[in-house]
């Protein structure tokens, strides 16, 4: 159960990596910081609404409200980052953009540590979602927060899948990912599509941040090494699934979640990170394009 819950969060973050890669062929290193931002903004809003760490059962709409607010804020931040940091470099060599992404990542981490943002103290996320044991199956406890988290993540992924493969905007995104030049000749507003991709990826990362804070309410300070590791694992999920491939990212995320938690439970909890990165090496050796990354696969 933990495997699905954590895996679907990895998948949500991996989607952001993979969509940007699919369109711009660069790795947005600042993406994991958007995820952290999502978690901390959820915390800030929840505290702002007056839910304390020990308060009892806030109304059900509170969770939805905070989730949407965090997604909207991070979407706006993602849009701003693309507009200010990446768009001026559209014609620059890819390495320059990559380095800029690392710079944006460091900027977000350190601004987040400032006193008037989130500070340097770990905080406790107030429980805005109902959490109780629903039932036990073969010694495995099912927690409502895990079920809600996994269901929300899966629902968001279904919406995204529909958006990309069933709408005009999605078709435009796919076209841009095939060939930016030709897409713009066909009358597609490339800049708008790219902005939209960033907004989409960032709000998914924010949703993952919110759900993560629900599952693990002790939030580490924004620049803590554990966040970097989480973002990295999500990136690994994107690569394993076949970077640039949306469905591959979903599959990769859930796979990574399972491998990590099953490895921790049945082999040794001390080596949990090693399982993830060993799988990455294996996949890169056997199928360098990732599980679903067929050479002719459609990329978004």
């Amino acid at each position, binding site marked *: 159960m933990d495997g699905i819950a954590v895996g679907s969060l990895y998948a949500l973050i991996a989607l952001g990596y993979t969509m940007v890669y699919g369109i711009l062929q660069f790795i947005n290193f600042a993406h994991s910081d958007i995820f952290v931002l999502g978690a901390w903004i959820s915390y800030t809003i929840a505290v702002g609404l007056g839910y304390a760490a020990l308060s009892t059962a806030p109304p059900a709409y509170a969770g939805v409200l905070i989730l949407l607010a965090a997604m909207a804020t991070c979407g706006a931040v993602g849009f701003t980052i693309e507009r200010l940091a990446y768009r001026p470099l559209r014609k620059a060599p890819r390495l320059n953009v990559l380095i800029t992404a690392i710079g944006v990542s460091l900027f977000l981490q350190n601004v987040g540590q400032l006193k008037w943002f989130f500070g340097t103290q770990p905080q406790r996320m107030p429980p805005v979602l109902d959490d109780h044991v629903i039932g036990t199956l073969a010694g495995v406890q099912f927690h409502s927060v895990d079920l809600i988290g996994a269901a929300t993540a899966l629902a968001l992924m279904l919406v995204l899948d529909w958006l990309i493969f069933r709408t005009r905007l999605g078709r435009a995104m796919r076209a841009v990912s095939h060939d930016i030049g030709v897409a713009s000749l066909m009358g597609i507003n490339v800049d708008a599509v790219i902005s939209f991709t960033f907004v989409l990826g960032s709000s998914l990362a924010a949703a993952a941040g919110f759900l993560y804070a629900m599952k693990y309410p002790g939030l580490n*300070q924004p620049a803590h090494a554990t966040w970097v590791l989480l973002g990295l694992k999500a990136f690994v999920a994107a690569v394993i699934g076949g970077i640039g491939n949306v469905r591959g990212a979903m599959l990769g995320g859930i796979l990574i979640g399972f491998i990590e938690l099953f490895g921790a439970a049945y082999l040794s909890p001390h080596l949990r990170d090693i399982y993830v990165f060993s799988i990455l090496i294996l996949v890169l050796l056997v199928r360098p394009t990732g599980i679903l990354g067929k050479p002719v696969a459609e990329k978004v």
Partner: protein
Amino acid sequence: MNPNVRRRRFSIASAAVLLLSAGLVACSGGGKESTPPPATPAPGAASSAPAPSGDAILIGHFGSMTGSEATFGQSTDNGIRLAIKEVNAAGGVKGRPIALKTYDDQGKAQEAGTAVTRLITDDKVTAVLGEVASTLSLAGGRVAQQYGVPMITPSSTNPKVTQTGDMIFRVCFLDPFQGWVEAKFARENLKATKAAILYDQTQAYSKGLKDFFRDAFEKMGGTITTEQAFSGGDQDFSAQLTTIRGTNPELLFVPGYYTDVGNIAIQVRKLGIKVPMLGGDGWDSSQLAAIGGDAIEGSYFSNHYSFQEDRAEVKNFVEKYKTDYGATPDGLAALGYDAARLLFDAMGRADSLDGKALAAAIASTKGFKGVTGSISMDANRDARKSAVIVQMKGGMPVYVTTIEPPPL
């Protein structure tokens, strides 16, 4: 699509992964005790120089002002500053005022080494105070020892810290004693016979305390059902806790630092483990209750002092600290205050402020009346003191009992 282009893209992707992993390994290496020695050791050159800032005596403090253990450094710094304010108001030491320079080590061992090097070589401090975490005191202590500058750690409890050399002192009790206190409390007050352990494998403090607790607990007739490890900063403890739950312990011993302990407590209760948790002075932070919330209620930890103790030194200190900082001082603030005052006392008695003379004066401290009890330096430059046990009630550590050291 052109397969060559594709291949190149993937090599970029995989290179990036490797790059990031390498960076991460470098970061997490902070938990180990691997500070390289400073490039240019200048024996004896640094310590004899008078402080540059006018007539003041400059002392240095390195601590975790930010990071997961941020309250450790901040509380200690507050305690030190309070002591300095007092001593300066009373005319200073040897007629000179005391000034303080604090560097943040972010709770990372390599930063601790750098901070102490800067304090000694750039700022030319007379003595160094710090750290709380034993791993960081070990890293900083090596540098201080090398330059021959006396260092007092207010609250590092691992025995290895003062074994670094004759310049390193401490004003708190040691983990063999703390482990014994916890085992005694578990056996005699909680009547527990079966205890499980969950410890942080990246911290010298946690590993040491775990061993001392286990040995003492088993000697007193208790059994350890299982020993599980985590790495500081982990978020998911379900695998370890599920194993622990399966062994049906009557007590869960978690010798960790407060951020991790808070996170662990949440998951302990979530998994339906109802037994009390027990820990050490690493739990001592207002953030413990902020993170752990109701999950940490009712658990116990051993500490250096309790603000509720009925002693004149304690009452006096708590009152002054509250006036200045508007908060109840934790054990680390009290130890920072004691370490600084003990240092000033030794400076007053020392023939000169030279490293060797000052170290000799600190080593000869006997019966110093501190907030955390009477402090006498033994031959190993360690202090011999009593410990208190407190229980988390309503988000505050409430005094339960005092345990005296066993007769020698």
